[in-house]
């Protein structure tokens, strides 16, 4: 590839990746707009406002996404829910990243001990993760930080497995052998040689983790656990509108549901784009 002979600037790489992955680009723009709007406003109605006289209106000129059972504006609530939903998902993913990566590095030895750890992780994955998260949050007395703990607990093993397999294959590679032979210290090996090479897959995993966290979070609040009223969250909004689905008032659950779908889709697409980008730079 001729254009790889000159190292292109970061901006150029980003621009080219964006052009090649329109899905990820659209997804990124969607997330940014959603986050900014939910943080800065303005929203047509307060998300906590109710209006008994205007309940269950279908989408119209004043209520773009219609109103729910208590007359709340579905549009305002859907945008506003992004604040709590996305920040909790990000927090869960961040905790998983911060704990999972070092643990994964630590488990990346070839010894029997680290093999046992991996087996134990497999056994952990054998438990129904949703039930586990539900149990953790409920037993703790419905604390929000437990939601973050539950999300990160689900994802830490994934980081560990990923890191372990990547590092084990990197250790076989020539440049690691060379660096070790030249007497590089362990921290230097990790920070100078290992991490830069696994950075791409970590980013991919993080994007996937955020996507997964959004689903777990909305599942929990759909079951009435975690984020509680009056703070709007997509899961609880879907729960509110679930019964209305079989009587035809689709908009109450549909718009928050679509918001979840689009956010998850966006982070999945971004993960794909980063993965593609990383795979290409290895060639």
């Amino acid at each position, binding site marked *: 590839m001729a254009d790889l002979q000159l190292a292109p600037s970061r901006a150029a790489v980003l621009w080219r990746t964006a052009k090649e992955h329109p*899905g990820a680009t659209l997804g990124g723009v969607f997330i940014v707009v959603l986050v900014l709007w939910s943080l800065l406003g303005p929203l047509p109605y307060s998300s906590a406002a109710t209006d008994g006289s205007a309940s269950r209106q279908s989408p119209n000129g004043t209520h773009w996404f219609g109103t729910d059972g208590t007359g709340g504006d579905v549009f305002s609530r859907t945008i506003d829910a992004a604040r709590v939903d996305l920040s909790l998902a990000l927090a869960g993913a961040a905790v998983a990243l911060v704990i999972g990566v070092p643990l994964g590095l630590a488990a990346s030895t070839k010894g029997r001990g680290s093999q046992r750890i991996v087996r134990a992780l497999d*056994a952990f994955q*054998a*438990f*129904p*993760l*949703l*039930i586990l998260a*539900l*149990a*953790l949050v*409920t*037993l*703790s*007395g419905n604390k929000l930080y437990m939601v973050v703990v539950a999300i990160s607990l689900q994802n830490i093993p994934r980081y560990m497995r990923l890191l372990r397999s990547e590092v084990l294959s990197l250790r076989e590679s020539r440049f690691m052998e060379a660096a070790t032979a030249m007497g590089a210290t362990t921290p230097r090996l990790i920070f100078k040689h290992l991490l830069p090479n696994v950075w791409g897959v970590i980013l991919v995993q993080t994007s996937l983790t955020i*996507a997964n966290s959004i*689903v777990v979070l*909305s*599942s929990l609040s*759909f*079951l*009435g*656990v975690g984020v509680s009223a009056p703070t709007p969250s997509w899961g609880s909004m*879907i729960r509110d*509108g*679930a019964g209305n*689905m*079989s*009587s*035809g008032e*689709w908009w109450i*659950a*549909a718009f928050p*549901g679509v918001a*979840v*779908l689009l956010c*998850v*889709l966006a982070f*999945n*697409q971004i993960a*794909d784009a980063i993965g593609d980008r990383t795979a290409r730079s290895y060639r």
Partner: protein
Amino acid sequence: MTLSTTTSSQELSRPRRGTGALRLVASRLVFLVAALFGVVTLSFLLVSVTPGDPAEVIAGPVASQSQIDAIRADLGLDDPLWDRYTDYIGGLLQGDLGTSYYTNLSITSEIGNRLPASLSLIILSVVFAAVVGIGVGSAGAYFRGRWPDKLGRLGTSVFQSVPDFFLGLILIYVVFFVMGLAPAPSGQIGISEMRPEKITGFITIDALLRGEMATFWSAVSHLVLPVVTLGLVYAAYFSKTSRSTVGKALNSQQAQFARAMGLPERTVLRYAFVEARGTIVTYAGVIFAALIGGEAIVEQIFAWDGLGSWAVQGILRLDIPVVQGMVLVSGAITLITYTALDIIVGLLDPRITHG
């Protein structure tokens, strides 16, 4: 001309069908027993040492401390951990998992009643997901970069991103409310309908055995929406895996040699599929295991009286024996599935059975 270059027979190891397979099965079964014991212990510890006092929850917010203490004593929560553990194991060996704090129903019989409902949902969903997903994925691998691939990948990424409960709600709205094609989400059969008398516990099978055809068709029609919901979501996973594994096999030297020998494309595709089948079977098993418990919310939406919705209710009410029972059942089913998978995948591969 003479061929002076013959090979000695020692070069070929004698094929020993059977011994490899036997060793494989034996070693997996030993591991299974050990791991099952681990699951039992974990299911006990999980709910016995986690914070939160079930006695307080059961007693309600207005109960006095003495009432709570009475409930604690009644539930045996004050006994030392080790005694509770041996009690638990002892009961387990007799098939006794305790009774629900709320309904006083035996956990064992609850599981026995609900397992068939969940299993019929899960097995059909995995089959549906496998058929659709493998079809889409293989087509995508074969027509890589062309329209069937692009369409398949679009569908795959959408269904991979949609929460299963939301997809279920949409299907209820579209197929039940708008089109009127599916029955109301009222569980395994209609609200006014009678379950057939129990033989196997699977409503469809029991209805057939009892010759109640109306009930049978009702049960089948009630299965459609939940199966399609879970099936579509998990089809996305099958499609992703089979696209990459079949694609890899189609680009392998082996596929190229098969083509160079003039084998027809359908044979080449079959070769590729045979090579990829281990991975795909593994996937089916993992998804099956994940769905035990993972199907909980979809069960709730469709009022399905299976294990998942039972477990969710149990957890929300801090009904510890229910949670323990669920963790135990799903852990055991998962471990048995993984063991069966190891064995099946091994038996499918002559490199293991003819080692």
